């Protein structure tokens, strides 16, 4: 194939060489589309992509897990108290661990998208942008639940506390995690646009997440102290309302958060 050279300024460049064979797609290869990419399919595509990438690299999960185990161990040595006092701080220790580990995961999850411009790739897809929020939120929740599933048995072992496996307690952890991840995913999409994202996310997140963390600690602490259902109803209601409000808010504002 002929290759010619062209002078531009003082540069000689090879141009026009290896002319393309004008590749054309055969009709069978032309893309066939759904009537409209559905919200659910786009959300699930993001979740599957995040899980596949994470199970291959294990960057995010390993960081969250190691951090959580260190926190549990540090508390174990710091709180060399009698067994009753230890049991009374269970909810606080666990939620402190989950909150900090969750922040690590949230930061990393959005940073992966931003650092290689993949967030733009997601935003270019012709789907409702709140599908991106839900996709990221579901995968963040999955990571947090995996960490919790490993941390809880470890905690039970170190603190001799098996009551944390009661279904109601696990239900509170699920509700609290949903609220924390909903607001955290929204705020991480905001903070990832800044240069100080690692510092900014906790500063933004913890004040906004105080209601969900307080309600979670109160509800889970109440369950461990054999409180009646009526006594934990208020924090439980607060948790449910918080979850619903922040999921709705994220659904409405995510498009504006990610657009310049």
């Amino acid at each position, binding site marked *: 194939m002929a290759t010619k050279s062209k002078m531009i300024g003082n540069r000689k460049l090879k141009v026009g060489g290896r002319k393309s064979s004008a590749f054309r797609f055969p009709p069978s290869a032309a*893309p066939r589309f759904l009537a409209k990419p559905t919200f659910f399919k786009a959300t699930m595509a993001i979740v599957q992509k995040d899980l596949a990438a994470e199970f291959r690299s294990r960057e995010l999960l390993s960081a969250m897990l190691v951090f959580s185990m260190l926190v549990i161990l540090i508390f174990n040595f710091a709180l060399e108290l009698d067994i009753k006092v230890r049991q009374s701080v269970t909810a606080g220790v666990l939620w402190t661990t989950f909150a900090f580990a969750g922040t690590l995961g949230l930061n990393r999850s959005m940073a992966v998208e931003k650092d290689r411009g993949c967030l733009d790739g997601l935003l270019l897809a012709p789907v409702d942008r709140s599908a991106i929020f839900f996709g990221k939120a579901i995968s963040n929740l999955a990571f947090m639940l995996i960490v919790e599933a490993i941390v809880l048995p470890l905690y039970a072992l170190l603190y001799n506390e098996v009551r944390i496996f009661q279904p109601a307690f696990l239900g509170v952890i699920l509700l609290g995690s949903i609220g924390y991840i909903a607001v955290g995913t929204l705020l991480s999409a905001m903070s990832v646009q800044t240069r100080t994202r690692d510092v900014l996310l906790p500063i933004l997140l913890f004040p906004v997440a105080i209601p969900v963390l307080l309600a979670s600690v109160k509800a889970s602490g109440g369950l461990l102290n054999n409180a009646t259902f009526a006594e934990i109803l208020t924090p439980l209601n607060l948790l449910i309302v918080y979850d619903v409000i922040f999921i709705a808010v994220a659904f409405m504002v995510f498009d504006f958060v990610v657009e310049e």
Partner: protein
Amino acid sequence: MIEVKKLVKRFGLKTILRGVDFSVEPGEFVALLGPNGSGKTTFLRILASLSRASMGSVNVAGYSLPNESAQVRAKLGVVTHMPLLYPDLTAEENLQFYARMYGITNHQSRITQVLEMVGLEYRRKDLVRTFSRGMQQRLAIGRAVIHDPEVILFDEPYTGLDQDASEMLDDVLRTVTATGRTVVMTSHDLARAEDLATRFDILSRGVITATATQKELKKTNLLTFYKQAMVE
């Protein structure tokens, strides 16, 4: 195909684009040239619906922005100097993911065709993190055309590529544009722009200061035209 009128973009008190008028006919390949900071990337991001104009009107493929941005995105492919690919997924998985995001139902056959087009069929099962920069950029073009867009935007696609990788990208670019798609490309590489584009617009300090077609440039060359436009 693209119609932009009196486009203004401000970031806080700073005005980046100061009333840009710009139009592209179907099948045209426009090279948007200009110095660093002239607003080329901002302009392309607005066309791609990644950024919102402060003032003015933008129409792409018959749809207006920002109101019909989802319809615009369905007709648009974007290639930047970043590949927009996930390093921990294989080439096939990356394309599969984007095909699902675009609602493509026959994605397996489509992915095979796209990988053949960009010359990466033999690496389809390899992780993207093992690819060279040039291979990643070729795969990025595959990602951008997976849904067969009518308009393709290239933002500095040659950034960070060595000579060989740039020449391979030339081939892929010619292949992609040979099918009559409308293309807008920003670049600092005047030689490549001159070789590929059918029209040249110079963006300087937020406005388009000069326009010339390939035919008009036969009397002079792109470098002279560019320098004159910058002086003006």
